[in-house]
């Protein structure tokens, strides 16, 4: 009886782990292997539009590994400028989110306890509503006849409408706006746990408020700063919707280039190698995120 139930328990255990495991292996891990494989093949006019990597004929297995796509990424300035400008856009937006988000998170963490949940909900709610719609909302606001230009002209500050939409500025605004809640959440989680007595001790000992902030508050919230920054930086690098809707022809981002290579040029091998290089660039931020991913995230999501 005992052995039987133990066996049953082991069987249950096996199924609980193997079903999600198999699902993720098939639909998450394997696809990356395929992307890698296709990044090493050449484009062809066929369905699917690339040459086979493996060929088996006359008892000979031929494996063709084509490095041309990667060499092309180095060769063609379009691609590396796209990578560089994506990294730059993501970095600037991350800093922007940090500058706006840190004081917000701090204020929420210092608010009375019953207000904290309400304020946190207010911050999180927009990120749960449609991403596409929120980006779209900015199109109307930033356009030449939009509310910003109209009110600036009405106030007499400018006589000609400012070109904001279809510039990099619009992309920055869009990314900061869309990802701000993801910065605030982990920051709040570390700031709320901060031991206030340390700050009191510092001010009792005569430290100025700014000094206390840089010497105590900020270092203690480091894990939140890193987790939040990575939550903004990583998806921002691959962003497609925001540069497509708010950016102009010169706001080159790698997500947009990948999309165009794939859907417009139908060059699957190049799109795949773009994705692989993007992943390689993001490995450091992703591991950083995993290391500092405060349990906090789980608590508030």
């Amino acid at each position, binding site marked *: 009886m005992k052995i039987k139930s133990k066996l049953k328990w082991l069987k249950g255990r096996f199924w609980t*782990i193997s079903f999600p495991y198999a699902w993720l292996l098939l639909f998450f891990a394997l696809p990356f292997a395929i992307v890698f494989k296709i990044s090493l093949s050449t484009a062809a006019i066929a369905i699917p539009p690339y040459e086979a990597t493996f060929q088996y004929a006359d008892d000979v297995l031929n494996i063709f590994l084509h490095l041309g796509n990667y060499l092309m990424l180095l060769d063609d300035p379009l691609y590396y400028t796209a990578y560089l400008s994506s990294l730059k856009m993501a970095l600037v937006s991350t800093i922007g989110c940090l500058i706006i988000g840190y004081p917000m998170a701090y204020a929420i963490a210092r608010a009375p306890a019953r207000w904290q949940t309400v304020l946190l909900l207010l911050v999180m709610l927009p990120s749960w509503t449609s991403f596409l719609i929120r980006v779209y909302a900015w199109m*109307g606001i930033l356009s030449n006849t939009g509310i910003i230009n109209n009110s600036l002209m009405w106030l007499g500050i400018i006589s000609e409408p400012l070109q904001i939409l279809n510039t990099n500025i619009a992309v920055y605004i869009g990314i900061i706006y869309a990802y*701000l809640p993801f910065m605030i959440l982990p920051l709040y989680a570390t700031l709320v746990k901060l031991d206030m007595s340390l700050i009191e001790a510092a001010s009792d000992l005569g430290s100025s408020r700014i000094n206390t902030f840089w010497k105590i508050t900020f270092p203690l919230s480091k894990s939140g700063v890193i987790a939040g920054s990575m939550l903004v930086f990583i*998806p921002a690098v691959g962003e*497609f919707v925001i540069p497509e809707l708010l950016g102009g022809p010169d706001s080159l981002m790698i997500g947009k280039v990948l999309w165009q290579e794939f859907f417009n040029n139908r060059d699957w091998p190049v799109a795949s190698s773009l994705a692989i290089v993007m992943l390689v660039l993001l490995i450091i931020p992703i591991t950083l995120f995993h290391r500092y991913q405060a349990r906090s995230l789980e608590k508030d999501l």
Partner: protein
Amino acid sequence: MKKLSFSSVMLWFGLLFLYAPMLILVIYSFNESKLVTVWGGFSPKWYGELFKDQQILDAVWTSLRIAFYSSTMAVIIGTMAAFVMTRFKRSWAKLTLSNMITAPLVMPEVITGLSLLLLFVHMADLLGWPKERGMVTVWIAHSTFCAAYVAVVVSSRLRELDRSIEEAAMDLGATPLKTFFLITVPMISPALVAGWLLSFSLSLDDLVISSFASGPGATTLPMVVFSSVRLGVSPKINALATLIILCVSLIAFLSWYMARRAEKRERMPLN
């Protein structure tokens, strides 16, 4: 009276920044004028136009069905994974599973979308399935990335759970499966509902992954919105956007409420 600090001023500015665009959008959806930025008086006429658009209505129906199936599957996978993550001993399998399940949270969407599409193309090549990409492939894609969110929500709940009740049930002779369904599931049900609702709104909203994973048979609402938005701002889309904001925030609020209620209930006996 306390002086307004810098951080609380920033908080209110930040909240204004977060909500103003949506508010403006909602106001302008009631604009009589055909020009989106010129106010021509109050009128709900664009809502009427919207409900005559068959393409949009079809897309809404497709999106709702996909969201329903995806969030259900996501809850199943996500809960199992969460269970493994919180209750199983540290092992190689557990570690890789928890890494794989949380990876979609940060992965850029274009990469996830591209890789899934290439998988489907390969499967069609080798297995003859799926012949055509459509609802099923979008369902698979959405279930996979929504499962990540469910796993996060449910595992935080499982971690806080008082395990003595489960242990008592097992001591009294209940099988692990029975214990799970009779004891654990009722205790984590608010988290399951919250995860389901969160997945539902994520699936409804997803554009990038859907575009990669879907074929001619399945055009979701965000895809329709995106293709018309690319051409510029239109009053009909303002009306649609308002309705989407309304629905999704309602779902989101409900899921938040369920999660909070669960936490409160858990804390109650302590007081």
